[in-house]
């Protein structure tokens, strides 16, 4: 099961009895004693933070489900009943709603860390791919969940996104009717979205177990990006517990402080006011936008003039992540030692934030107000439409062109022979 041998020795009678029948204590002890590189920085605490987020969402979700009514006539009022009448309901609801945002903040940082330190490269491809599966399931879960309060954004967001399925040629329309349970989004849709929203987090949980299994098999990566051979384990690693359990715990508390600022002082700031208007199928809100964490993909969707092309591009933006291990040709894992790639990575982060910003704007709106421009094909050059297209181009170019090309051509910096080396060298310099 693991990449390192089990060092657990059962001591008490119960432990011995269990060990030959169901070795869960061994499993736990091995998990906690995993030799972990000792140079992990705080970017590596987000895995633990994500586990907290998943547990929090499931726990609060189960208790919300005790009061929520998945019926179009009662859904909005049932959420408000939770906010007003259920003991502590306001807290559980705000934790769940803001928890989704926190989950995505953490997952984006976690993914960028994996990208930067080359954690997707051999032998860790499966960890990365399973992570992409988790990310995709998270987006699906979040989309389904946002429909449940049955506000204006819930309804119209569902309308827009399910209509994309209709864009698939030939089979799109029948699938759309099947998905919605009728010609329009109505009670049938809401009920099944609730059922699926309850289901998917447990699927995510299962994939997380596989994700951690793959991690323990291949071993934890580190900022230097080198594999740690067996003979260096004693010098270069520490057991996961207590070194990283406590460090992760500390990071989790800091994360909870940020979480608490949102939940207790600005609980609706990451949402949209229009979702406090009960859903009205006969009136479209002026701007339909998804939650902030889906804005980059929404931007890519709208950047392509063809409806089906937009759908393909949006899914390709996630799909390209799955094949990342094979797109990168570099022999060096960590971008710490890849100065050229590092620059492109920084630009990618800026482009990602930029795409998110564009997703929240009207495509026709001017990027630089007042600046004169001309029409290019189907829109003004000085418009969010073309800015989004520029960003989308970079996004796909990063994965499809830059990564393979730079990996082959760049000259990496000298990589230390072991992870203890950089520490000793600095210390020796001080002495």
């Amino acid at each position, binding site marked *: 099961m693991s990449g390192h041998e089990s060092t657990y020795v059962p001591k008490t009678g119960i432990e011995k009895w269990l060990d030959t029948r169901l070795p869960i204590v061994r499993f736990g002890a091995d998990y906690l004693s995993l030799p972990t590189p*000792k140079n992990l920085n705080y970017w590596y605490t987000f895995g633990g933070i994500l586990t907290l987020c998943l547990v929090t969402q499931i726990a609060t979700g189960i208790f919300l489900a005790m009061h929520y009514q998945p019926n179009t006539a009662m859904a909005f009022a049932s959420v408000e009943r939770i906010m007003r009448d259920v003991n502590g309901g306001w807290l559980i609801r705000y934790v769940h709603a803001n928890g989704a945002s926190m989950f995505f903040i953490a997952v984006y940082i976690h993914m960028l860390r994996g990208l930067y330190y080359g954690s997707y490269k051999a032998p860790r491809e499966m960890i990365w791919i399973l992570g992409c599966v988790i990310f995709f399931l998270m987006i699906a879960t979040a989309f389904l969940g946002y429909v449940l309060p049955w506000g204006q954004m819930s309804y119209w967001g569902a309308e827009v996104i399910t209509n994309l399925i209709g864009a698939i040629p030939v089979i799109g329309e029948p699938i759309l009717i099947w998905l919605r349970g009728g010609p329009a989004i109505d009670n049938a849709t809401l009920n099944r979205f609730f059922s699926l929203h309850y289901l998917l987090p447990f699927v995510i949980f299962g994939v997380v177990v596989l994700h951690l299994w793959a991690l323990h098999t291949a071993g934890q990566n580190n900022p230097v990006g080198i594999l740690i051979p067996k003979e260096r384990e004693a010098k270069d690693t520490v057991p996961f517990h*207590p*070194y990283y359990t406590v460090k992760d715990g500390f990071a989790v*508390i800091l994360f909870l402080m940020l979480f608490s600022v949102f939940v*207790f002082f600005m609980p*609706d700031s990451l949402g949209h006011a229009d979702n406090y208007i009960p859903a009205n199928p006969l009136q479209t809100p002026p701007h339909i936008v998804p939650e902030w964490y889906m804005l980059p993909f929404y931007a890519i969707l709208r950047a392509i003039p063809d409806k089906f092309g937009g759908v393909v591009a949006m899914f390709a933006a996630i799909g390209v992540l799955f094949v990342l291990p094979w797109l990168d040709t570099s022999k060096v894992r960590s971008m710490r030692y890849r*100065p050229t790639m590092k620059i492109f990575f920084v630009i990618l982060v800026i482009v990602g934030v930029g795409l998110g910003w564009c997703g929240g704007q009207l495509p026709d709106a001017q990027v630089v107000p007042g600046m004169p421009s001309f029409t290019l094909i189907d829109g003004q050059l000085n418009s969010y439409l073309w800015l989004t297209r520029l960003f989308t181009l970079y996004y796909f170019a990063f994965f499809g062109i830059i990564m393979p090309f730079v990996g082959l051509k760049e000259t990496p910096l000298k990589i230390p022979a072991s992870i203890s080396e950089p*520490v000793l060298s600095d210390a020796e310099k001080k002495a």
Partner: protein
Amino acid sequence: MTFSIRKLALSVAALAVVGTAAPALAEGGAHHPRSGGFTFDGPFGTFDQGQLQRGYKVYREVCSACHSMDLMHFRTLGERGGPFYDPHAENPAANRYVRTLAAEIEVADIDTETGEAIRRPATPADKFPNPYPNRTAAGAANGGAAPPDLSVMAKARHGGADYIYSLLSGYEAPPAGLRMTATQHYNPYMAGDMTPFWDGDPEHVPAGGFIAMPPPLTAAGQVTYDDGTEATVDQMAKDVAAFIAWSSDPKATERKQSGIGVLAFLAIFAGITYASYRRIWKGVAH
């Protein structure tokens, strides 16, 4: 070139902060709302019980003729932080002010013995009655536009209570050159785009939009305040906006106060855990 990840993180965070800063012009070309100077603004804000009582009176005597508050119950008025909270009442439903206020209002019910539709005085357990039997009737009685429910109106509009206050007290005579219809009223705080209706200088389209509601607060003294406060249009607008802000979020004060406690606990917990972490890692070069 050295490009530390730390610097990158800080610049992204800075970008995000700048990006979310409020734009100069509010939603849909309307004027930015004026501040109502509300006591409940900010992380330490609380509702002013007197203001909430006055606001309830304005809602009851002016707004409830057309606007429902379907998610509000009479007993909520007696909750802690609410307008008629009484610490001596054993629970909000037993609160005598709540019982009296409820009994002043009639609600529809079914006779328990004959099954006929009747009207009876409300009890604290009842919801605020809806002035119309259904949404279609509400629209039909108001020129096609159903008056929106006000229960969560402060959360349903950008600007919240400030927006509601500005809208109610901000009706103006339409500028010359604005094509009006009989059913629409001009309000500079209402979201909208006046360009298609504007005959004047295209560089200076008036801010605001058309709203189907005529100015509801027209004269000082429209409502008589029991605490002697002068009921100017401005005051009534502020008070009813505060009441709507409370009804949108009755747990706001409880939420903010528990937040301070939670953050204090987490800060101490973080300190202890950090000390534990440093102790564990002492002597390990990393």
